[in-house]
């Protein structure tokens, strides 16, 4: 029974889904930074929390970017493009954090849309308009 579960799970690990999840996680961080900025503008969250979110997201995006680059199941061109998007996102956030300012929402949103479109493509779905 245990062997069956393990074999089934080994067969079930779809590399496209793994790659798509990485891109969605990166897009999720972009959305989180935008949400935090929105709450900061409304003065609902303290400055220290904004810094925490920005610095955590930079580290998380660096990890995701490394995982994308190491993913040999995906073609090199896609990997390079999406890793570059992660890098640009992290750079935007890091710059804002250093300047103790809020990052540009439009730039974040633009990268988020591209990451989600890439994720949809990886899953083999027709790219859809994101709901937000």
């Amino acid at each position: 029974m245990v062997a069956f579960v393990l074999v089934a799970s080994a067969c079930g690990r779809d590399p496209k889904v793994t790659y798509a999840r990485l891109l969605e996680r990166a897009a999720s961080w972009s959305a989180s930074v935008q949400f935090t900025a929105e709450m900061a503008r409304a003065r609902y969250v303290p400055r220290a929390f904004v810094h925490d979110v920005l610095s955590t997201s930079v580290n998380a995006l660096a990890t995701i970017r490394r995982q994308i680059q190491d993913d040999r199941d995906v073609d090199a061109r896609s990997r390079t493009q999406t890793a570059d998007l992660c890098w640009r996102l992290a750079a935007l956030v890091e710059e804002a954090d250093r300047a103790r300012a809020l990052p540009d929402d439009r730039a974040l949103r633009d990268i988020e849309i591209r990451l989600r479109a890439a994720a949809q493509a990886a899953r083999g779905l027709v790219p859809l308009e994101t709901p937000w």
Partner: protein
Amino acid sequence: MVKNLTKVGLGIVTSVGGFLEVGSIGTGLQAGATYRFSLLWAIVVGTICVAFLTEMTGRLAAVSKHTVVDAVRGRFGFPFHAWPFGAQVIVDLFVLASELGGAALAWQLATGISIRVWILPITFGIWLLLWYGTFDSIEQSVALLGLVTLSFAVAAWRLHPDWSDVARGLLPQRPQTDPTQHAYLAVAILGASISPSLVTFYSSGAVEEKWTPKDLLPNRIVAWIGMGFGSTVAMAVVIVAALVLAPRGIHADSYQQAAALLSVPLGRWGFTLFCASLFIGCVGAALELALDLSYIVAQTFGWDWGENKRPIEEARFALTYTIALALVMVPSLLGIDPLKLTMFSMAITVLALPLVVGPLMVVMNDKQYLKAHTNGFVTNAAVIAIVVVAFVLAMLALPLQWLGA
């Protein structure tokens, strides 16, 4: 009347440890953010299982004046009992480490200062509460302070969800995307709710409070009310995440992504209430787990035990939680993410579950312990179902963690 109110306190404290700690809040946020209401059924199933288990162990304590660990060691012998004992000690240590990390994380979110700075004073504070406090004082303060978590319920109500949508989530349904991750979160939610420590803690608490057979009906009510409180708040966490995070495409992989979610329905107070809820939930769970560790070690070896006694009256009991707290600080001092530690802890919790729940089937039908109050048909059927659920979860936990994490 006052005694019945304190019994409710034990139910609430136990449910805080099960439903409102760092793991349950974290998985609830992820479940709501990714799958909206479709995992609410897992919380309902977890609640029903835990309510049955706590009612049984409360009944055991009230009638026999003995705890689950007493009865299992007495009935099954040490060579068998060593397995659930060993498993539960390991689980309690890992989960305690997560809870301390979660409490420190709440302060990091609020102040921006790293958890590595907060972990020492928080651990010391928890040790002081255990060293100087009594079971009653700890139970009542955690139960009262735990009411702050009702802010999630208020937030859910203010967001005006489509209640028919919410109701549909109370039944299992096939997800539209990523069924593996959906299954993993279901297992994680169930693992976080049906924790072996709830079972042993509740029975020890009932003995501490000197319950008698007159308390059997209050025990039944308290088990369901207490777990009902916890599960209501846990479901509110999922609902709020579904309405605030999901539309924004935020997955809540870390607490930083979710900490501002109460600000949408509750405005300026939202963020503070989130941090307070996380802190109090984690401290309550940490107190419960530290005590549970001491309870299970002392009861296994037959030492004198009781949080209502002074440390000088039960040195080994008091030093067990002291040493445990010192050990479990280390992961947070090393900077390990509490949420990652939590997800790992939940997988091993699920593996330990059949070892703790299985023997309960035998104990709860033993007339020498329970006299005329052994399990009826319904409760026996419930225990069998819970043991089956526990085995299934144990089989699925590790493969799903690998696939879904």
